[in-house]
């Protein structure tokens, strides 16, 4: 009997201890919040595609709002419009995805080898230039492409190509599969480059040296040793890059929509614009499924869990270099030229075009600062004032900075807390679940993620108000979409903080709150700051994620730029994209500076 009561007492005290532990409380709260913000939106989206909506009455007589139906799926997959709605966009998505990935990976792979394994000169400054296309917003590259290859057949002014050569470029070069694939490849090759460079850096150069000693030539070594060893990473990089390209919205939209060329991602947007919400959601679900399959495949190729994904800002690589001999300078010239064309030229083109009074007319007398500094003039650009006098743009700039900094700070701190729980409670299955859930947003193509939040927050649910149209919703989705990255940064930071450092404080009698504040936070701060900066830059150049959630009062630079591009006000959209590009590059520079100036004493003892 006494045994029973004592067992109950033990049970009670154990429960109380478990419940009162701040780490457990945080774990429970985060699990619930993230389940609501990550898992539930997906279910909501799927449910939405399987029920009749209010707007469906005009589509079908059988529509009973709120009731279950396969109508939307049938409409997408087996109806007269499915060809236009699903199959042709799907085919376009796969074709542009595969072509751009092949291009990106070939370029990224060759460059990675040159930078990591060869003795090519000028690596130090080529490397940052080579990552530029990934840092700047993807549709900056699309705009630059348009600047050169715009075809008057679809209206508007001629591009640089026509101005110089006197003939219009063929349409396949202006719009559709070719330009979309090439510009996607330009935007994503640095991503592939970083993945492959990471794999190459792990090669033990002794493997190659031993082949060298047995008399193999350089090409043979490359073919028989180097490539087979990095092959799995290569395949994984292929799938990851592919997964990223299919979620791209702005770039295919700008270079495809004028000729009715659609991908699944642009179709989601187009359908929402047409009010065909449920159909758009079906497409979003399909996009997610493709992405899930590709990530699943890539995980099968990467056994190591830690390399599930990489972020910009890899490590410094040092391994034995292959001597290029007399090819050193020719290789350098080619790489430098390539870096200039894809990294710097687009920005120059945008800058020049933003100071041309009449777009497409090249001459000194056509240059003007109007689009930057001019006041409203009804004759130019429908009276839109220049960037510095445009309240719309100034408001958008302010919103952008507010959104990026708020999201970055919140995402980093929540990421650190999640990382702390994940690392310190590694044996707790719930902590593991938290890790998994926080990673899920990485699997959603950003435009589909936006679609989910559109369905979830359109109406108030319980205590949660209808957040659609609010700035809060933008912060919310930005934070959640950054979590996979910030948790990863956090895990790296927390893992480096020896458990003993905390235990020493625990023995001294410090509470969990005090330990987190005085030991964990300061020690994680350098990693935290760089993580914050990465998120800041990432949120700032984000378009696909928030394009569906933006309203005029919450517009940011990217959506304003996209809006101007849609309206054909190229100079203004170029100016805005240029501003974002400069801000992101500045962000990257600060990041680089933080990394460099990191206190040496921390590095040594951590």
């Amino acid at each position, binding site marked *: 009997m006494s045994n029973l009561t004592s067992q109950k*007492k033990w049970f009670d005290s154990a429960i109380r201890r478990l419940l009162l532990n701040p780490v457990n409380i945080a774990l429970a709260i985060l699990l619930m919040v993230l389940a609501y913000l990550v898992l539930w939106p997906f279910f909501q989206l799927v449910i939405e595609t399987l029920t009749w909506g209010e707007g469906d009455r005009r589509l079908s007589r059988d529509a009973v709002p709120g009731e279950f139906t396969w109508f939307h799926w049938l409409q997408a997959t087996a109806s007269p419009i499915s060809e236009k709605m699903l199959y042709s966009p799907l085919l376009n998505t796969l074709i542009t995805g595969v072509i751009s990935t092949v291009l990106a990976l070939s370029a990224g792979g060759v460059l990675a080898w040159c930078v990591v394994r060869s003795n090519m000169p000028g690596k130090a400054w080529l490397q940052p230039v080579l990552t530029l296309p990934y840092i700047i917003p993807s549709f900056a590259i699309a705009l630059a492409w348009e600047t050169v290859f715009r075809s008057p057949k679809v209206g508007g002014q001629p591009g640089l190509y026509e101005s110089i050569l006197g003939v219009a470029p063929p349409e396949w070069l202006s719009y559709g599969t070719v330009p979309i694939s090439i510009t996607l490849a330009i935007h994503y090759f640095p991503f592939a480059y970083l993945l492959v460079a990471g794999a190459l850096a792990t090669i033990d150069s002794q493997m190659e040296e031993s082949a060298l000693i047995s008399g193999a030539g350089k090409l043979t070594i490359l073919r028989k040793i180097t490539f087979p060893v990095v092959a799995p990473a290569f395949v994984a990089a292929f799938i990851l890059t592919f997964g990223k390209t299919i979620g791209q919205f702005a770039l295919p939209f700008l270079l495809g929509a004028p000729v009715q060329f659609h991908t699944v991602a642009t179709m989601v947007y187009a359908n929402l614009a047409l009010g065909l919400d449920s159909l758009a959601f079906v497409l979003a679900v399909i996009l997610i499924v493709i992405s899930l399959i590709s990530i699943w495949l890539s995980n099968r190729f990467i056994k190591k869990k830690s390399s599930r994904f990489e972020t910009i800002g890899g490590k410094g690589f040092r391994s034995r270099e292959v001597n290029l001999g007399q090819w050193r300078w020719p290789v350098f010239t080619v790489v430098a030229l390539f870096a200039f064309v894809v990294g710097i030229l687009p920005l120059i083109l945008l800058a020049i075009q933003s100071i041309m009074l009449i777009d497409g007319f090249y001459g000194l007398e056509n240059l003007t600062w109007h689009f930057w500094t001019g006041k409203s003039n009804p004759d130019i650009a429908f009276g839109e004032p220049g960037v510095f006098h445009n309240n719309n743009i100034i408001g958008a700039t302010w919103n952008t900075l507010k959104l990026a900094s708020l999201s970055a700070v919140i995402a980093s701190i929540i990421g650190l807390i999640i990382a702390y729980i994940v690392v310190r409670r590694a044996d707790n299955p719930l902590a593991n679940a938290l890790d998994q859930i926080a990673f899920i947003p990485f699997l959603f193509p950003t435009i589909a993620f936006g679609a989910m939040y559109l369905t979830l927050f359109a109406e108030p649910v319980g205590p949660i108000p209808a957040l659609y149209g609010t700035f809060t919703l933008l912060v919310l989705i930005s934070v959640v979409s950054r979590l996979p990255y910030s948790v990863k940064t956090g895990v790296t930071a927390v893992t480096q903080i020896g458990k*003993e450092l905390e*235990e*020493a404080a*625990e*023995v*001294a009698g410090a*509470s969990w709150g005090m330990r987190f504040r005085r030991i964990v936070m*300061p020690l994680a701060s350098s990693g935290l700051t760089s993580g914050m900066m990465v998120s800041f830059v990432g949120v700032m150049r984000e378009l696909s994620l928030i394009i569906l959630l933006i309203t005029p009062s919450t517009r940011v630079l990217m959506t304003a730029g996209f809006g101007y591009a849609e309206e054909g006000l190229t100079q203004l959209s170029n100016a805005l994209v240029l501003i974002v590009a400069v801000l992101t590059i500045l962000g990257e520079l600060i990041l680089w500076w933080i990394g460099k100036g990191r206190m040496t004493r921390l590095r040594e*003892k951590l």
Partner: protein
Amino acid sequence: MADIIIRNLTKKYGSETALKNVSLEIESGEFMVLLGPSGCGKTTLLRCLAGLETPDQGEIIIGDKVVFSSEEKIMNSPGERKLGMVFQSYALWPHMTVRDNIKFGLDVLKTPKNISNETLDSVLKSLGMKEFEDRYPSELSGGQQQRVALARLLATKPPVFLMDEPLSNLDARLRMDMRVELKKFQSESEATTVYVTHDQTEAMTMSTRVVVMKSGEIQQVASPGNLYRQPSNTFVADFIGMPRINLINLRKEQQDSSFFVNSDVKIDVGWVPISNEIVLGAHPEDLVVSKKKISSSEKYSVTAVLPNGPETIIQLTRGKTPVIARVAHDSIYTVGESVYVNYTVDSLNVYDAKNGRIEAPVEN
């Protein structure tokens, strides 16, 4: 200033048992060393004392306070146990200066500023670290970092010191100096100290008593002298002593005889053990080596000569039985030479070959 009582402590990690029913009493002011090979449970025991691990069963009493009891459902947090700890890696906080590192514990205790400053100054001075107080841990040498860890321990004047291999990261020479210093501070502070190490020299030189552990169980608790002279089983015998003790499997020559033999050697243990099969423990210095045959000595051949400063270790064999002997540094032997060996009867330990336990002559 506080004694420690550990009763029937058991700790499991999944199916692995790290501590098996461990009981130990540590007297106030004692310098108790937990010694054993890696994975023997010594660090787990220390961490259970600290409150960093929760045992599954048993009881821990520090001073007059029960800090853990599975019966009474008590589990005090580390902070409530009034102890100080030095970690193997020192666990100095890299983002705090030396002074702030030491001050942290005083801050937690909400020590008034003037008293805290006084304490800090005196601790820093006594460890010779005053001039380094504004440096960061990474700007210090290993020995200095060690001192800071020690200062952090001394500042709050806890009645119990816990140390987890604090000297293992220092080079051999510095380790010697720090041993002396640690011992000095421990005796001055009169704190009960539990010290984990796998280095037997450290254990022997610093402790008042040594606990030898293996696979989560205590093998022997004894003063350093007793531990060396009378290891209670073959594991301890084999573990303690550099070079290793000679352990020779022998059987009784005949009923009621004090002579034991194997195919090669015949040794008189001086009394009649009960066991017929024994393991004989003979320290290298218990072998008397001479070039001439004296009384019952047997002939061995020299297989290796290893001079080591004040002593020389020689390896000998007779048939298939190898032994090690310790001889004076000025003795000259060459490999292949034949020598005669006698065993010092009084120093020999006899272990039952079946269970490895020591067998002592029954005193009447």
